[in-house]
């Protein structure tokens, strides 16, 4: 009878706690529960009891954190995220530990009724958390209704607008480098046409890769993965970009540039994208895809495929390897799980060797530039420091083969290319700015 009376107050209290269910309350519970239990009957609560509860709350607290950590993750390479996640878990454990010494171990051991109370508290706690988690999950369901306000943002992400901007800027650099008088109309038509072609290619790429993108951290927030746009709309958008884009290039600029644009779309969507899952040769195909835009820029200006165009293409081609190989080094787990055939997974030594080889090739190609009258001899001299620096990082990546060297090489490649193109434009053979001074 006395045991039944003992069980009375905690049961009523737990009833109160189940009622206080909204999300923030789940976190406050450890403190509230322990405080109330302590107030009711200090002798009744044992050290083991509290330890058990503490462990339960710590586990759930951790689960809560780990659940939240996932949606917060940005498209950053997973290794960096892992560190952050572990750090958060560690700090939580340190916070909760100091509470237990408050209640010193008593001489009483857990009797059957106390154990029942603990069990039922645990069951109620689980149910409460389950219902809370379910309502939380229900809020994450979204209606698949296209909001016109969101459409520009969605289409920008679908067409990978930042990458498109980079592609257009390399095409513009190719146009500006060509040894002909600068024609503004032609330049604008080329830029718009190349931009539209790039948007189309990127949209089709995302259309093909929905389930694969869902499984990779870097790409899981893309519009088609999140269901913000239907596949039909994505394909329609791609077609409505490709047709005007190629038409603009063919009719507004010249047929050669149009043909190169169409070929590049084909190469990217029908060769590179499926090949990513079949063979490591996809990297070389992808490098050609990256090399074509500056060639297009040059042919738009001159109307012919000169050695200068091929040199520019060659520089972009070589640049792709340190850039992509370094990036892929940190994504090996996702590639392996998703079934992507990348050098970094299947042939790691080759991956690093090729990256280094092409860093050195950049020095060679920069030296060939003045020979072909693309630039003056100042260009290979002034660009030597940055070319040597990227080669040095390429060598470190080759030798060390770790995350930090791959990261350094990747981030270097991001500023190396714009700087190299800027130097090429500055020391352009035809209209060198220095000649004016």
């Amino acid at each position: 009878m006395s045991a039944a009376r003992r069980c009375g107050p905690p049961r009523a209290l737990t009833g109160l706690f189940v009622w206080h269910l909204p999300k923030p309350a789940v976190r406050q519970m450890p403190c509230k529960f322990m405080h109330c239990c302590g107030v009711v009957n200090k002798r009744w609560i044992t050290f083991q009891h509290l330890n058990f509860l503490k462990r339960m709350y710590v586990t759930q607290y951790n689960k809560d954190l780990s659940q939240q950590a996932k949606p917060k993750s940005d498209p950053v390479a997973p290794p960096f995220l892992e560190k952050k996640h572990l750090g958060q878990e560690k700090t939580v454990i340190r916070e909760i530990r100091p509470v237990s010494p408050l209640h010193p171990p008593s001489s009483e051991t857990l009797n059957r009724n106390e154990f029942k109370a603990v069990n039922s508290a645990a069951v109620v706690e689980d149910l409460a958390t389950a219902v809370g988690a379910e309502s939380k999950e229900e809020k994450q369901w979204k209606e698949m209704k296209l909001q016109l306000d969101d459409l520009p943002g969605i289409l920008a992400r679908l067409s990978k607008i930042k990458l498109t901007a980079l592609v257009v800027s390399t095409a513009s650099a190719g146009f500006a480098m060509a040894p002909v008088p600068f024609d503004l109309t032609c330049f604008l038509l080329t830029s718009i046409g190349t931009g539209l072609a790039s948007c189309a290619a990127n949209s089709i790429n995302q259309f093909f890769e929905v389930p694969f993108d869902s499984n990779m951290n870097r790409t899981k927030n893309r519009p088609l993965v999140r269901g913000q746009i239907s596949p039909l709309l994505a394909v329609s958008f791609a077609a409505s970009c490709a047709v005007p884009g190629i038409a603009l290039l063919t009719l507004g600029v010249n047929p050669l540039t149009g043909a190169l644009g169409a070929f590049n779309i084909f190469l990217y969507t029908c060769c590179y994208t499926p090949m990513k899952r079949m063979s490591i040769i996809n990297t070389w195909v992808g490098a050609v895809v990256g090399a074509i835009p500056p060639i297009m820029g040059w042919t738009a200006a001159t109307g012919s495929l000169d050695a200068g165009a091929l040199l520019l293409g060659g520089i972009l081609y070589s640049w792709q390897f340190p850039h992509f190989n370094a990036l892929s080094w940190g994504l090996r787990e996702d590639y392996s799980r998703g079934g992507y055939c990348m050098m970094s997974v299947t042939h790691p030594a080759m991956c690093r060797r090729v990256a280094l080889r092409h860093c050195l090739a950049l020095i060679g190609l920069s030296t060939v530039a003045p020979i072909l009258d693309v630039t003056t001899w100042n260009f290979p001299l002034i660009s030597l420091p940055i070319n040597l620096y990227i080669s040095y990082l390429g060598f470190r990546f080759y030798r060390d083969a770790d995350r930090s060297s791959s990261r350094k090489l990747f981030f270097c490649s991001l500023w190396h290319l714009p700087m190299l193109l800027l130097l090429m434009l500055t020391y352009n053979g035809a209209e060198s700015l220095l000649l004016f001074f």
Partner: protein
Amino acid sequence: MAEAAAAAVRAGRRVRHVCSGTRRCFSRAGGGAGLLAAERGREPESRASSFCPPAHSCNDWIGPPDSQSNLRPIVFHIPKNESPLGRRLREFRQETQVWNQQFWASQNVSFRKGKEEFIYSRLKAKGLEMKGETGQKVTLSAEEMADFYKDFLSKNFKKHMCYNREWYKRNFTITFLMGQVAFERAWRRLGWKKTKVGN
């Protein structure tokens, strides 16, 4: 305690009671997954069965990524005047969703399992335990895991080839059917407008 537990169960039951009224308006791939999975004697893997869209909604609903497959389940809306073509599209999408869910769930589960076994065998070879002093799981660096990644990729290569071919076919079919349905709807609306104008 009993009262509290009963209250929680009643709350859960209330949600499901609302669902039963709207169940015929929405078809769930989760139900499909449950059926197919039950046939093969496996646990249903999709969470779509626990969600119920509001009755007034005329659109599909997409959920959070599944914990095993990382794919987002869709609850498809059945319109009142669904054409045979529309029904074919919806059922094909549902079937594709179930097929995708099963492939990726099994793929990810086998990856995680293989990774755990690999880490265990490597740590054992080093003479270390799975859990460190702080109670945290010991993980190997990416360099040490590289052998596992390469091995896993080559082992699953053929599986991925078959999956890729099937996925591309299904994706094209779904998009083509979507186009046909959209065209059909537009044609119907045009035809309906014409009869209105005629009257």
